[in-house]
């Protein structure tokens, strides 16, 4: 929930609402008055993106790919279908592609032109994914970007950057960490991070 920041823009009576909060509230009230949006629909949309989608969905896809070779083969062949079988589909996940990290290949996903991101499996993107710094540098200096995340890639590892310029969305399948043979799917999913599925981190 968005309660841990200084700029509270709901009625707490301690800080005045920000200029943006006031402008957004005014627009919402106008659109509701004109019948252009349903305020309950706005609540439901916020709830969907705060609670129903997020990187735990993608983590489940990754853990299943690690433990079920048949699923992994389907994921590589047609990620949209394989991911839909787990119940994840919809806006900004219409055409999914899964790319797999190996000891020799590391994948990194970006959208240089805007903020394209696989919402059904990762939720909405973090601020840095939408930032000018990431969008500009991921394609020209991917190894430097990884260093910002504390990840130093050996020279001999090939970096493949995927710039999401169309409606195709990418999910990185990170390498399964060593020493996890005894873990079941749920325990493995808990090891999978959002940044690992974007490619800015290794697990």
């Amino acid at each position, binding site marked *: 929930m*968005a309660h841990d*920041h200084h700029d509270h*823009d709901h009625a707490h009576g301690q800080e005045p609402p*920000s200029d*943006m*909060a006031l*402008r*957004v*509230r*005014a*627009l*919402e009230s*106008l*659109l509701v008055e*004109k*019948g*252009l*949006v*349903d305020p309950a*629909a*706005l*609540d*439901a*949309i*916020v709830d*969907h*993106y*705060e609670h129903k989608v*997020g990187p735990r969905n993608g983590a489940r896809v990754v853990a299943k790919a690690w433990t079920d070779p048949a699923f992994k083969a389907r994921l590589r062949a047609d990620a949209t279908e394989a991911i*839909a079988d787990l119940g994840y*589909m919809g*806006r900004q996940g*219409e*055409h999914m592609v899964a790319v797999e990290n190996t000891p020799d290949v590391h994948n990194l996903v*970006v959208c*240089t*032109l*805007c903020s394209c991101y696989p919402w059904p499996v990762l939720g909405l993107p*973090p*601020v*840095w994914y939408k*930032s*000018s*710094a990431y969008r*500009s540098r991921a*394609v*020209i200096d991917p190894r430097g970007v990884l260093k*910002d*995340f504390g990840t130093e890639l050996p020279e001999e590892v*090939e*970096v*493949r*950057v995927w*710039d999401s*310029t*169309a*409606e*195709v969305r990418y999910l990185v399948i990170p390498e399964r960490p060593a020493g996890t043979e005894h873990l079941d799917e749920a325990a493995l999913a808990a090891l999978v991070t*959002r940044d690992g599925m974007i490619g*800015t981190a290794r697990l």
Partner: protein
Amino acid sequence: MNGVHDLGGMQGFGPVVPEPEGSPFHHTWEGRVHAMTVASPTRANIDAGRHERELIPPAAYLGMSYYERWFASLSSLLLKHGLVTPEEMARGAADPAAPRHTPRLPAERVEATLTARGSYVRDNPTPPLFQPGDGVRARNLNPAGHTRLPRYVRGRAGTIERLHGAHVLPDSHAHGAGEEPRPLYTVRFTARELWGEAASPRDSVALNLWEPYLERA
């Protein structure tokens, strides 16, 4: 358009600042802007929405947060479509004489709509010009309108890796000129082709590019 949104390969924006997993919204109003954009009648054309953000003047664009851009583009699209008048926007209240609309997305349809399986693939009887393995060059196009051909690949040679079928062409669709489906490819460029000899000889960048963006190399 050669806008400031086309950031790939630019330098000087500083380090990327990681952020822990958590709520996607950092202020309550950001969630409302996101929801209004998704629920608005203007959302029917996602390419037009992207182009509207590209039309934000460069200095303002760079100075805005992500959801400030969404708010600006939603406001301007509502005005362009005549769904809201400038007077109503200034007053923050509806013209009493204006007709009342019916929301495009009622609350009871939100879950089904957000999780509905959509597709940008369309029928196109013309066979694709290129096949995986073909050498291509991104054309040196500089349209004044919307395009998804970033500057950093224009004029550069790459290899077709995959065909995705015929997808809605944003260059046309964003301007209300029809979906004009064209073959969409994954095209891989070596880092050295894009950035010169100082780049890693192993690394590469892959983009999704429509056939009209490409010529045979």
